[in-house]
């Protein structure tokens, strides 16, 4: 192998994002083992690409919520054929009070408001644990899962090692994906990916918290 094969910017970026093809990965990783300059470049690329992804995801969530609130406020009264004066401050105060009573009632009876879905992108790197709010269904993307082969067996366990979900997934170019169709309570969870021979390939961590 050519020792002076320095990965291109594109290759380093694909590697940092966990999207580099297996065939290119071997060559690049061997080079990274001996090239301090490329390790530095990879670090910078990792900071940038992961930072952009996180910021774009965070950015995408906030405006969507704002739009929903605004749309509901503008159309609510007319949608049900009710007069606009119901939205005047006096009535709004009464309605707000009723909403508080209803919310308290729901929380007492245990019917707390849980988001229908949440999604997380996980990498097998140790460090910070990505987290999600409690949701009825969690969509997980295992970014650096193998892009070929499979099916892979997946097990989701809680921090005590108790199995919470199990199934199998196929490898895809954008990372393996799975939907956990159950509400996970608050706590730490680990996603374990096994190959067809039963060997552990990756372990991922995430947290559910309010």
């Amino acid at each position, binding site marked *: 192998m050519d020792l002076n094969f320095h990965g291109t910017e594109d290759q380093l970026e694909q590697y940092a994002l966990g999207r580099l093809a297996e065939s290119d990965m071997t060559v690049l990783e061997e080079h990274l083992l001996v090239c301090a300059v490329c390790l530095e*470049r990879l670090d910078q690329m990792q900071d940038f690409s992961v930072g952009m992804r996180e910021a774009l995801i965070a950015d995408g969530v906030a405006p969507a919520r704002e739009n929903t609130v605004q749309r509901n406020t503008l159309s609510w009264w007319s949608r049900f054929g009710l007069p606009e004066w119901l939205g005047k401050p006096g009535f709004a105060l009464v309605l707000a009070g009723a909403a508080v009573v209803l919310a308290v009632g729901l929380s007492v009876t245990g019917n707390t408001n849980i988001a229908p879905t949440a999604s997380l992108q996980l990498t097998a790197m140790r460090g910070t644990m990505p987290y999600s709010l409690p949701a009825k269904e969690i969509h997980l993307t295992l970014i650096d899962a193998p892009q070929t082969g499979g099916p892979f067996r997946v097990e989701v366990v809680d921090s005590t090692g108790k199995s919470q979900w199990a199934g199998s997934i196929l490898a895809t170019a954008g990372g393996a994906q799975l939907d956990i169709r159950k509400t996970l309570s608050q706590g730490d969870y680990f996603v374990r990916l096994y190959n067809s021979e039963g060997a552990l390939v*990756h*372990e991922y961590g995430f947290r559910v918290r309010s």
Partner: protein
Amino acid sequence: MASDAVPESEAPRPEVLQVTDWAKLVQRIHAGEPAAMEELYAIFAKGIRYFLLRNLGPEELDDKVHDCFLIVTQAIRNGELREPDRLMGYVRTVVKRQIAGSIDSAVQQRRTRAEFDDTLLTVSDWREDPERTVMARQRADIARKVLSSVSRRDREILNRFYVQEQTQEQICADMGLSYNQFRLLKSRAKARFGEIGKRLAAGVGVNLRKPA
């Protein structure tokens, strides 16, 4: 994106590496030459350390690096390395096995401990590293600052690439972009990211919370 011109260099050009004669190095280690061991360490220590840190975190890092070298040198001394020219590939395989083994043992440990007591122990090796958490937050803040300075269209292009994971070919076709325009947008965003990061590292006041 007014121009198609792509910066000549997006990053400092990596230096030319001294080409090592792997077979000769393996032969010297096999013969027990201490200088050859030092050479092996000098070549691979940083890279091995990097991969272990990236995959396993900082815990017992020095021991894990040492273990990798032990395995490699033992294999060489025992004459188990069939293709000395492929030393880099062998080192990579050893590091990957060590990573997989460490993860496996962490998983087993969690299972065993959980059997002893389900409630008292929090058996996570994904402990929050405060330094990493601060760095991750800072990284996201810098990226937000960069995003606040690009147009809505450019943001959509970045979103398609980094979040929706579309290929550059698909993005260029959908958005009517040339490959150079696409690269230029990314390299500008990356340059801005680096610039803000440097200013931050130098202690120059950067207001990360408010858009520019």
